[in-house]
C-alpha cells in the first residue's frame, strides 16, 4: 500500500542541513524517495518537530539545502512549498466553519468558485464528515477536527504530507480509524508522508520506513520491518523497550 513509488509523490532530501536554537545543535542528512511513508520516532527533544519544520519552511537551516522533488526549496516560504502539514492541534480556525476551513486549502483568501465548493463537500464526504459543512470546530470531537484537516489535505493535493503527532490526543480506537483513513488517502494520492509519532503500532500499521532521531541527528533510517525485528538498531530498540 505504501512503497509504490507513485509519481504523484515527491522525493525529499535534506542535504547537510544544520540548525540550532537554545543551545541545541541539530544536523540532518536524509533522503526519502517519492511516495514513501516514513514514521519519525525518537525521544522528546530529539528534533522530530524541527525536522518537519525545516521541510515545511517554518524554520530556515543555518547551512545546507532542503530539496523537494529535486528542487532546492531552502529559501521558499512555507506556502510556496509543495507541502501540506497537519499539526497535533490548532489545524482549524475556531471562528470559521468546517467548509471554510477546508476551502482555505483551495484559496487562502477564501474566494471559492462553485466547483471549489463542490470539491470541499466531496472531500468532507470522503473523510466521513458529509453534511457537516456548517459546523464550527468547537462543535466537533477531536477526531472529527483532525478529519477536517485531512479533508483539506485531500483538497490541496500537495505531493508531500507532514504530520506532527496528529493523533496523539485521540483514544486507541479512534487512532486506528484515523490511521486507516490516512492510509487510504495515501493510497489514492500517492504522496510522500512523514509522520512524527510515539506509537510503534502507528509505524507498523502505516509506515514502510522508520527514521529514528536522537540528539538532533538521524541515528538510523530504514525499512520498518527491519526496525521492528531482532536486528533493528540498538538505540531504537532501547527507545521502544524503555
Amino acid at each position, binding site marked *: 500500500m505504501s512503497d509504490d513509488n507513485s509519481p504523484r509523490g515527491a522525493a525529499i532530501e535534506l542535504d547537510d542541513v544544520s540548525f540550532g536554537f537554545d543551545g541545541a545543535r541539530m544536523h540532518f542528512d536524509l533522503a526519502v524517495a517519492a511516495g514513501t511513508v516514513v514514521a519519525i520516532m525518537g525521544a522528546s527533544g530529539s528534533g522530530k518537530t524541527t525536522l518537519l519544520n525545516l521541510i515545511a*519552511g517554518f524554520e530556515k537551516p543555518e547551512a545546507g539545502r532542503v530539496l523537494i522533488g529535486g528542487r532546492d526549496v531552502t529559501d521558499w516560504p512555507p506556502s510556496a512549498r509543495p507541502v501540506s*502539514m497537519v499539526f497535533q492541534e490548532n489545524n482549524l480556525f475556531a*471562528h470559521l466553519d468546517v467548509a471554510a476551513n477546508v476551502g482555505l486549502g483551495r484559496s487562502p483568501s*477564501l474566494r471559492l468558485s462553485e466547483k471549489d465548493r463542490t470539491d470541499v463537500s466531496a472531500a468532507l464526504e470522503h473523510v466521513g464528515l458529509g453534511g457537516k459543512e456548517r459546523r464550527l470546530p468547537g462543535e466537533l470531537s477531536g477526531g472529527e477536527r483532525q478529519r477536517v484537516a485531512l479533508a483539506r489535505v485531500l483538497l490541496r493535493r500537495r505531493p508531500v504530507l507532514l504530520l506532527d503527532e496528529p493523533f496523539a490526543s485521540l483514544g486507541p480506537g479512534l487512532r486506528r480509524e484515523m490511521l486507516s483513513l490516512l492510509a487510504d488517502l495515501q493510497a489514492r494520492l500517492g504522496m510522500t508522508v512523514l509522520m512524527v509519532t510515539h506509537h510503534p503500532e502507528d509505524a507498523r500499521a502505516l509506515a514502510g520506513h522508520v527514521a529514528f532521531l536522537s540528539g538532533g541527528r538521524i541515528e538510523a533510517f530504514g525499512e520498518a520491518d527491519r526496525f521492528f525485528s531482532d536486528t533493528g538498531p540498538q538505540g531504537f530498540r532501547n527507545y521502544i523497550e524503555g
Partner: protein
Amino acid sequence: MAVRDEPLRRGFPIEPRVGAGLAALAAIAVLIGGAFAGMIGEAARDWSGAVSAFDGYMMRVARFTLWQAALSTLLSVVPALFVARALARHPRFFGRAAILRLFGVPLALPALVAALGVLALYGRAGYFAEPLGWLHGGRWPGIYGLSGILVAHVFFNLPLATRLFLHALETIPADQWRLAAQLGMNGRATFRLLEWPVLRASLSGVAALVFMLCITSFTIVLLLGGGPRATTLEVAIYQALRFDFDPARAIALIGLQLALVTAAIFLITRLGADAAADRGLPVAPARPALAGPLERVLNAVLILAALAFVAGPMAAIVTAGLEADLARLAADPAVHAATATSLVLAVLAAILSVSLAYAMVSARGVLAQAGRRGRPSLLERAMGEWAAFVLVIPPIVIGAGWFVLLRQTGQLFALAPVMVVTVNAVMAVPFAIRAIRPAHDAAAARHDRLAASLGMSGMSRWRLVDWPVLRRPLLTALAFAMALSLGDLGVIALFGSDAVQTLPYLLLQRMGAYRTADAAGLALFLGILCLLLMSLADTRPTARR
C-alpha cells in the same frame, strides 16, 4: 520567487508591521521627549531659579507626598488582606459576585467623581456631617486635608488590593483545600500554611502598586487636600504653572516628582509587581467551606464593613446627583458643549491609543518570532515591557513639560485639544497593550504556522484570521481608553480655558464657583458615562472552543 509577508525569513529589510511599530514608538518618544526638552531647556536657561526653588516648602511638600502615600498604602493593603481572606473563605454566598463587581467599580470611576462622592458623604455639608459632628463634639469641620485624601485613596485602593489578593488566594489548588479539610486544620493553621504563603508572595507587589498610584495621585489631592499643609508634588506643579506662573519652581518640582516615581518604579520592578493592575474578576473554585460559626460572624462583619465603606461614596454620588436640578443641567449649553468636547476628544484619544498599541503589539510579535532563538532584542523589549512604564510618568508631568515648552508660542490654550488627546492616548497605551496582546499572541501562536502554510497573507489574513479574533480585545481597549480619557482632569486642568472645556473641567469650575449641586449632577453623569464604557470593556466573549 516573490517572498511577501514572510516573518520567518532572516535578514528581511523592514517588515511593514515592524515599521508601524517603530512609528508608534517614535510618536510616544516625541511626546515624552518634547516634555523633557521643555523642562531641560527652561532649566538650562535659568538654572539658578530651579535650584533656589529647593526650599523648605518644597521639602515639606515632598515629605507630605511620601507620607500620605505610605499611610494610604498601609490603610488600603492591610485591611484588604483580611477582606480578601474572608471572601476566599466563603466561595459561595448570596451577593458575593455582586460585591466583587462593586469592588471593581472604583477603578473605573474617574478620581474626580470619587472625590465628590467622598465629599458628599463626609464633607462639611455631607450626609454624615451631623452624626460625625456629634462624635466630634461640635460642628463637623469636613474632611479636607490628610484625612480626606486618605479616605479617597482607601476608597480606590482597598477594593483593588482586595481583588488582587483574592486572585492570589484563588491560585491555591482545590486539592490543597481538600487536604486541609481532611487533615482537620483549623483556621489558624490553614492561614499559616495555605493562605499566608500566597498572600505574602503578592503582598509586596500589591503594596508597591498602591503606593505608586498614591504618589502620582493628582485629582484627589487637588480636590480634597487643603492649603500648603496637604499638598503633593503634582498639585504643587499645577499650582506653580497655573497660579504662580513660576516655571523654574515647576521644573524643580517635576524633577523631584520624577525622582520619587523612578524610585517607586525601581521598587515595583524589584518586587515583581505588575505595573498595570489586573482587572480580571476572579472566579471561585470548588472548595469545601472551612469556617466555623465564630469565624463566619467575623468574616461577615469584615465584608459588610468593607462593603459599606466602598458603597457609601458611590451611593452618595447617586443621591447627591439626583438632588441636583438635572433638567436645568440637561438644558445648559455649557454642559452640551463640554459633553461634546469630552466625547470627541475621548474618541480621538481612544483611536490613537489603540492604533499605537496595536502597531507595537504586532511589531513585537514579528520581532519575537524572528529572534526566537536569542535573547529578546532591545527593540522587542521596548515594544513589550518598556511601554508599560509610560503609565508611571504622570500625565501632569508630561503636560507640564509641554506647557513650559509651548508657553512662548502664545497658542497655549489653542493647543489644549491636541495635548489632551495625545497625552491621554499615550497614558492609555499600556492598558490597551494589556487588552490586545494576550489575544494577539495567542492567536499568533495558534494560527501563524497554519496561515503561513496555507499562504494566507496581507488583507485576506487580516480579514479571515486576525480581525475575528481581535475584534473583541480591540473594542475593549477602545472603550477603556475612552473612559480613561473622559474622566481625566490632569492635562485639562493645565491647558483648559473658557474656550476648551471638558466635562471634568466644567465640573471643577462649578465646584470652584460653589455650585455644588451642579457639580454633583455632572459627577453622576460623568460617572455613569465612564461606568458604561468600562462595563463595555469588561464584557468577556462567551467561551467557545
